[in-house]
C-alpha cells in the first residue's frame, strides 16, 4: 500500500536504516528500554532525532575536546558542507511535489506557520538585541532574521503505517514549511556574505541569481543523467550535478540550500523519471552527508556568552511561534490541518542547524558562530520539548478526525 505521507527530508524516506524504528512518541518509561534494544541506541535509527546523537558527537570531536575535527580540518570540509547543504535543498525541493489541491493547501498552511514563527522569533530577538546592547558585527535586524529562519524549520517525526492521520498531515506540513525559510534564507545569506554595506535590493537580485544558477545546473544535470547508459554513469552524473550545485553556490556567495531546492523542484516537475532517479541516487549517500553536516555543526560550536544569551529567547519564542503558527494555520485551513498542528511541529529537525552552518561559513567571526551555537543548543532543547508536548498515541483519537473526514 503506498504511503502518501512519507517523510522525505532529513532521512530521505523509508530506507533500510529507517525501517523498524521505535516510536519516539512513546512515554519515556517505555521508550528507554525499547531504544536500548534497537539500533537507535547507536544513533543508527531515527528514534531519536539525528541531531541529538551527532551534534554532541561533533562537539566531542571538535577543537574544544578531542581535536579530531580541528579548525584546519573544518576549513577543508567547508566545500563538502556546501554539497551537503545542496543535497538537503534538493530533498526540500522534491518534497514540494504538489499533486492536488490538498497539497497546495498544506503548502499554504506550512507557509503561514513558518512565516509566523519567523515573525515571532525575529521580532523578539530584534527587540532584545536592541535592549541588551549586545556588540554585533552583523546588523541587528539581520541577526534577528537569521535566528528567525533557523527557528522556522520543523520536523514532525517519522511516519509509520500505524501513525494517525493528524501525524501524517503534520509531517507533510513539516516538509512543506521549509520552503519559505529557505527562500528568505537565500536573501539572508546574500546579505551576510556581502562585503559591502548590506542592501535589500542586492539581496533580492542575488536570490534570483541563486535560483537561476540552481535551475541551470538542474537542467544541465537532467540532460546528462536522463541519457545515461548505465546506473553507474547516472550516479556519477547526479553526484557531479550535486557537487556543482554546492560548489557554485559557495563560490558565488549564495545559498546552496536555495540552489538545491530550485534544482529539486525542477526535477520534481520535469516529466520523466528524473525525481525518482535523483532520489534513488541520493539515498546512497544522504546519511554520510547529513551525519557530516551535524558533526561539523557540533565541532564548529563555541560556547560564547552571546550564544548563551541568544539561546533562551530562541527556544522560548520558537515554541510560541510554532504554537501560534499552528493555531492560526489550523483555523485558516481547518479542512486540511489538525487542530493541534503546532505541538507536532515543535521538534526542530536539522534544517535550522544547516542554515546556521551556512551562515557560519560566511560570518563565523562576525557572529555566525554565536548564531550556530545558539541554534544547535535550541535544536536540542526543542527536541526535548517535543518529547513533552507532542501528543502520544494515547492522546490521539483513533477514529477519523476532521482531517480524515475531508480528504482532498
Amino acid at each position, binding site marked *: 500500500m503506498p504511503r502518501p505521507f512519507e517523510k522525505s527530508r532529513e532521512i530521505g524516506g523509508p530506507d533500510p536504516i529507517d525501517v523498524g524504528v521505535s516510536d519516539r512518541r512513546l512515554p519515556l518509561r517505555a521508550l528507554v528500554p525499547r531504544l536500548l534494544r534497537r539500533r537507535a541506541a547507536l544513533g543508527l535509527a531515527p528514534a531519536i532525532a539525528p541531531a541529538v546523537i551527532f551534534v554532541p558527537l561533533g562537539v566531542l570531536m571538535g577543537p574544544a575536546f578531542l581535536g579530531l575535527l580541528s579548525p584546519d580540518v573544518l576549513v577543508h570540509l567547508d566545500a563538502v558542507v556546501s554539497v551537503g547543504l545542496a543535497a538537503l535543498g534538493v530533498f526540500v525541493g522534491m518534497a514540494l511535489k504538489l499533486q492536488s489541491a490538498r497539497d497546495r493547501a498544506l503548502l499554504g498552511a506550512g507557509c503561514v506557520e513558518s512565516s509566523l514563527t519567523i515573525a515571532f522569533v525575529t521580532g523578539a530577538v530584534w527587540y532584545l538585541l536592541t535592549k*541588551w546592547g*549586545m*556588540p554585533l558585527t552583523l546588523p541587528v535586524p539581520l541577526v534577528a532574521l537569521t535566528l528567525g529562519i533557523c527557528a522556522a524549520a520543523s520536523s514532525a517525526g517519522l511516519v509509520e503505517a500505524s501513525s494517525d492521520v493528524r501525524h501524517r498531515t503534520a509531517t507533510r506540513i513539516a516538509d512543506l514549511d521549509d520552503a519559505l525559510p529557505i527562500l528568505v534564507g537565500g536573501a539572508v545569506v546574500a546579505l551576510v556574505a556581502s562585503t559591502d554595506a548590506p542592501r535589500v535590493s542586492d539581496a533580492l537580485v542575488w536570490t534570483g541569481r541563486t535560483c537561476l544558477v540552481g535551475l541551470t545546473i538542474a537542467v544541465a544535470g537532467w540532460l546528462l543523467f536522463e541519457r545515461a547508459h548505465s546506473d553507474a554513469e547516472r550516479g556519477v552524473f547526479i553526484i557531479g550535478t550535486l557537487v556543482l550545485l554546492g560548489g557554485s553556490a559557495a563560490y558565488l556567495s549564495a545559498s546552496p540550500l536555495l540552489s538545491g531546492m530550485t534544482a529539486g523542484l525542477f526535477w520534481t516537475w520535469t516529466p520523466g523519471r528524473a525525481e525518482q532517479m535523483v532520489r534513488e541516487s541520493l539515498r546512497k549517500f544522504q546519511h554520510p552527508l547529513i551525519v557530516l553536516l551535524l558533526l561539523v555543526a557540533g565541532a564548529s560550536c563555541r560556547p560564547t556568552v552571546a550564544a548563551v544569551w541568544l539561546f533562551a529567547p530562541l527556544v522560548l519564542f520558537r515554541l510560541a511561534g510554532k*504554537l*501560534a503558527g*499552528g493555531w492560526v494555520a489550523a483555523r485558516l485551513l481547518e479542512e486540511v490541518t489538525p*487542530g493541534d498542528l503546532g505541538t507536532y511541529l515543535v521538534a526542530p529537525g536539522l534544517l535550522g542547524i544547516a542554515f546556521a552552518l551556512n551562515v557560519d*561559513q560566511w560570518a563565523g567571526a562576525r557572529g555566525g*558562530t554565536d548564531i550556530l551555537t545558539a541554534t544547535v543548543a535550541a535544536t536540542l532543547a526543542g527536541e526535548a520539548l517535543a518529547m513533552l508536548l507532542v501528543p502520544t498515541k494515547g492522546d490521539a483519537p483513533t477514529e477519523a478526525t*476532521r482531517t480524515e473526514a475531508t480528504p482532498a
Partner: protein
Amino acid sequence: MSRLSLGRVRRETRLLAATLVVSIAALFLLARFRYPAQEAAGTATTQPLARLAATAPYEELAASIERLEARVLPSLLIVRVDAAGTRDTFEPLVQSTPVDSPRFVPALRVRDDRAIAILPPGARIQRMIGSREVPTIVTTDPVRGLALLDVPTEPAVVTSVWDSSTPLSTPRYVATAEGTRGGPTLRPLFLGRTDAILDLRWDAALLALGGAGAAPVGSFVFALDGRLAGVIADAEGGPAIVPAETLMRVSDRLARGAPLTTGDLGLTTQALTPALAMATGAQFGVIVAFADPTGPTGKNVRVGDVVWGINGEMVYSVEGFGDRVARMPPGTLVKLSLMRDGQKLDVEAVVGEHDGGPSFDAPGGLGLVLRQADGLGSEVMRVFPRSAAAYAGLAPGDLIIHLGDASAPAPSTIQRLYRDATSGSVLVVGVERRGRHIVLALTK
C-alpha cells in the same frame, strides 16, 4: 468525537495562551538585562572557498577595518568644538592665528545618554555630527581633560575592553577612531613599539607611541578584533595611549560625580634652562617664577628656588610638576625638595584648592593678575594656566595698552569689559611686550 476534538482544541489553545503569556513576560524580563562586556571575537573568516586562496595583506587589512567599522562605529559620536578649544598648547611667542578652524572630536558612548571624550582645554561644544541636539558637558576632569558629555539617548553598544593584564604586543596594527566633519572614521595605525611610561595625571602606565603625530589626541584606539585599547592623550615626550581600563575607571569616577577639585601650591614655574641651571646649581627640576604670597607656599618658597623633588619623587618638567600638584586633594601635606643658593633644603606645605579661576571648570574666566600702570594701562603680573588670557597669549610682564574700545585700560576696566562681553565674542588686546607692540585676540 466532537467532544474529543473540542478537548484537543482546548488543550492546544490553553497551551498557546500559556506560552504567549510566559513569552511576553520573559520578553520584558529579559529586556531589563544589559549585555556584559566580554572578550571580543577573533579575526573574521573569509568565504569558504576563498579561504583556500591567498589574498593581498593590504586587502585583508582593509577588510579587517571594514568589519571593525560595523562593530565600533555605532558606539562613536563626533562633536564639533569651537576654535577656543583647538588651542591646546600655549605658545606665548607665537602669534595666534586670527581664525582657528573648528575641530571634530570623537566621543565614545559609555551609556545610553553619556559619552566620554578628551576635549581641548576650554573647548565648547557647538554641535554633534548627525544630530540636531547639542551635547552638553556634564563634568570634566581638569587634570586629564576627560569630559563626560550628555548626549542624545540611544541604546549604547557594550564596548569590549582590552584587558590590560594582556600586553598589547607589538609590532601590530590597531585602528584609530578619528573625527571628521562627516562622522567617525577608522584608519589603521602601525605600532612598531609601545613603551610603558608612568604618567602622573592618569596614575597609570601609558603606552608611549613611537613617532609624533600618529593620530590626533582624543582618538580612540581599537584592536582589530573590536576591543577598545584606549585613547590617545598628551603625555610627556609625545602622544601616548591611555589604556582602556584606566580610561573606563576615570570615566566611571566622573559618572559617579566624584569631587574634581584640584590642588594648588600657588607657584608658577618654568623650565630650567642651562643658564638657569648653572646659576642655581641645580641639575634638574623647575624654577619658581612666581610664588603667591598668600598661597600655601608663600612663606617657604621664593622666586628663583628650584623645585627638584616632590614627596621624594624627582621633578623633571613643568607639566609633570603641575600635574602632580593638581592631582593632590586640597589639605594634603606635601614635601618639596628645593635648591636655593646652591643648598638643598626641604619645605613642607599644605596643598590648597585651585582657585584658578579659569580652567576647565570655568572656561569663561579671564585668568589675569593685573597692576595698574598710570596713564599707560595695566601690567600683567600673573597669567593662570588654561585661562582665557593664557590662550590669548598674554604673559607676565605684558603691558595692556588697549582693550576693545578702551585705551590705557585700568585693571577694573579690563575685568568689566571682559565680564560684559558675550560668550564666544573676541576682544582685541593691544599689548606692549619688551618694547614691541602686538595685538592679541582674547576670546571669552
